């Protein structure tokens, strides 16, 4: 634990910019939801400030890293910080998976008359047939069909699993200092990420236009779109991170010994991958 040289920056100018940006963004979004005409513009302005902040902050960190200011202890702090951040993301998804399990296993059968729900069913929803998928007793959003697991979703599973393979091949290349192979495998991973997102988008269009499945399709539509939607958002973020890190590979930022920035992105990508496996099993297959 050598920390004699632990790098502590003099000052940090970006955090306050980030706070102001987040505040404007949130203020704008909340106003927008309540129908204020300035809402979208405020949201946009806040988002731009946040993006500038992220760019500037990372630029500072990358510069300091390139100047060799970070010793091994700083590296370990970054690693542990990233692991805990991913853990917090796992818990965010856990809330939505929890909602899915609770609805499927407990509350929908209860409304159907199982367990303690006999009177609810009899008095409120005697007609309700508690089968999954459901849009609830009132069939909110109208009838819908679901997306079969062994079509696009299976293909997307294979794509993400393959991308996990390509990023591992990239890691091997990085550890052997073969920059050409590294960049090649990175680009392959990025392409797979983009293809996944494209297929996911076509699936959404298909659901909305042909299947009648929307965000408003009762509890099924809610859990389906919120889970896959937040996952898609994370894939988008992960793909952007992959692109940035690929550019950094091209700029020669990483050595075979020191490449935490690269690994952080790889960890994040694996996390997104694992969440998808959960989605595939619990949202599509079962």
């Amino acid at each position, binding site marked *: *634990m050598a*920390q*004699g040289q*632990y790098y*502590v*920056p*003099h*000052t*940090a*100018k*970006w*955090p306050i910019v*980030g*706070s*102001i940006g987040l*505040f404007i963004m*949130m*203020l704008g*979004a*909340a106003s927008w*939801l309540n129908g204020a005409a300035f809402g979208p513009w405020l949201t946009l302005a806040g988002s731009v400030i946040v993006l500038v902040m992220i760019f500037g*902050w990372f630029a500072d960190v990358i510069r300091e890293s390139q100047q060799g200011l970070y010793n091994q*202890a700083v590296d370990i*702090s*970054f690693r*542990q*910080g990233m692991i*805990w951040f991913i*853990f*917090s*993301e796992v*818990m*965010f998804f856990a*809330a*939505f998976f929890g*909602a899915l399990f*609770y*609805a499927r296993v*407990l*509350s*929908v059968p*209860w*409304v159907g008359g199982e367990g*303690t729900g006999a009177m609810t069913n009899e008095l409120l929803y005697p007609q309700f047939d508690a089968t999954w998928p*459901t*849009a*609830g*007793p*009132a069939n*909110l*959003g109208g009838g819908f069909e679901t997306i079969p697991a062994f079509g696009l979703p299976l293909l997307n599973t294979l794509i993400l699993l393959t991308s996990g393979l390509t990023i591992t091949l990239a890691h091997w290349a990085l550890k052997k200092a073969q920059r050409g192979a590294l960049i090649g495998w990175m680009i392959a991973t990025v392409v797979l990420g983009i293809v996944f997102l494209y297929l996911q988008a076509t699936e959404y269009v298909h659901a909305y236009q042909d299947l009648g499945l*929307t*965000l*408003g399709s*009762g*509890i099924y539509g*809610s*859990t389906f*779109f*919120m889970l896959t939607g937040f996952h898609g958002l994370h894939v988008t973020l992960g793909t952007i991170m992959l692109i940035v890190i690929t550019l950094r590979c091209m700029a020669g930022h990483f050595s075979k010994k020191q490449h935490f920035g690269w690994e952080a992105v790889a960890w994040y990508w694996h996390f997104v991958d694992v969440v998808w496996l959960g989605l595939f099993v619990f949202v599509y297959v079962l």
Partner: protein
Amino acid sequence: MSHATTMSHDDHHDDHPTGLKRWLFTTNHKEIGTLYLIFSLAAFMIGGAMAMVIRAELFVPGLQLVNPEFFNQMTTMHALVMIFGAVMPAFVGLANWMVPLMIGAPDMALPRMNNWSFWILPFAFFLLLMTLFLPSGGPASGWTLYPPLSLQGGTNIAFVIFAIHLMGISSIMGAINIIVTILNMRAPGMTLLRMPLFVWTWLITGFLLIAVMPVLAGAVTMLLTDRFFGTSFFNAAGGGDPVMYQHIFWFFGHPEVYIMILPAFGVISEILPTFSRKPLFGYTSMVYATASIAFLSFIVWAHHMFTVGMPLGANLFFMYATMVIAVPTGVKVFNWVSTMWRGSMTFETPMLFALGFIVLFTIGGFSGLMLAIVPADFQYHDTYFVVAHFHYVLVTGSVFAIMAGVYYWLPKWTGHMYNERLGKIHFWWSTISVNVLFFPQHYLGLAGMPRRIPDYAVQFAEFNMISSIGGFAFGLAQLLFIYIIWQAARGGERATDQVWDGARGLEWTVPSPAPLHTFDTPPKVDDSVTAHADRLV
């Protein structure tokens, strides 16, 4: 200011900004700790003012001062401000100041992010408090934001939800920073089982924060989409369930109460040995007890929901699991009492608050045990008994521990002793008034007075008036607290490095006031500097 312990430091000192910029751009754990503590004190006053409105309205039966809608906004906002603005930031502030000093680290592990964790908070609270001035007023559904009520309140809900998201981001980053600091920045020789208990309790609290704040974010996000984007998470007509919100919320909510009390346990475990002039009794069992409480906190959440109509088996499971928590908590109280046993005790203000904590927190713990009993809870649920219970654990528990910590470390922060006479007056005034405030509420609850109600039947009049008088007195006492802090910050008797003659631990080896940079070269740690040195003998 002497820089005796700081070694030849680099360029940092020369260009440290001054004025507002110093505070906006700082990456220093002590300055950020100070910001957190001042913010917390301000939130404590704002939340306290709301409590005064509540107690004034309840002084006599009938509607006097405010309309019921505004009353409900006050109860909701009071809770949100006190939990997320006063108590949690106070403990993060204490951690910022003390954890690096206690483990011999030069600063927090991620100093830039440390700045951001703090500077999100004022903006989040602006977003929250501004809802009071919206046409719809602030949120009025209670701080738990149960649907469907919380979704029927007009424009404020989106602002409140986004404010909670911001607070969550701040808490998660703060927790990550503290955990990484503890795991990665300890001085050589500061093994895990040599760490002061305050550090241990914060390590576990940090884990709880990272585990449950995202779950709260998920819960309020579902509220948002139910309200604005047509989802049916909490709408039975669409196959959802309002009770599902309560499950997700309390999966966050119960660990949250330990987030607010575990660091308090840590503070008390630092103070008692100092003023008993004895090492902490049962150090290792304290660590395991803390970890057990944290583990159990994940499997007891539905004790907040005994009356919503869960299956009997679920009620029983959550009842027994909840009661099991009394075991590790009992271990702690036993250890605290044993620490004082045959000690050479003195009763300076921090010690008085610590003793007040042990007695009064234990009362809150016992009423919690009563609430954990399912058939009894059917009677107590949503009455003033619950209000009395959680104010005993939160005010005479968490807040007393924070005050104890402030008096204990204030000389280290400011370099001056606070006015001991005024400190003692503050303690006795607070302790007497807080009991006048909250003890009658037990009786009100047992007699059936519901919580979150601006008016009540005349049979509750006397106890409400007594409670309100206690409330005003307790509120007034806190102005004295601010004065004492201000006085110590301005001047007074010089504090020595060790401050308290029974104090042990690294934080007492640096000068008072602690210079901006400490432990640039890590200290050597062995059993002689840790507070529980006798443990290994």
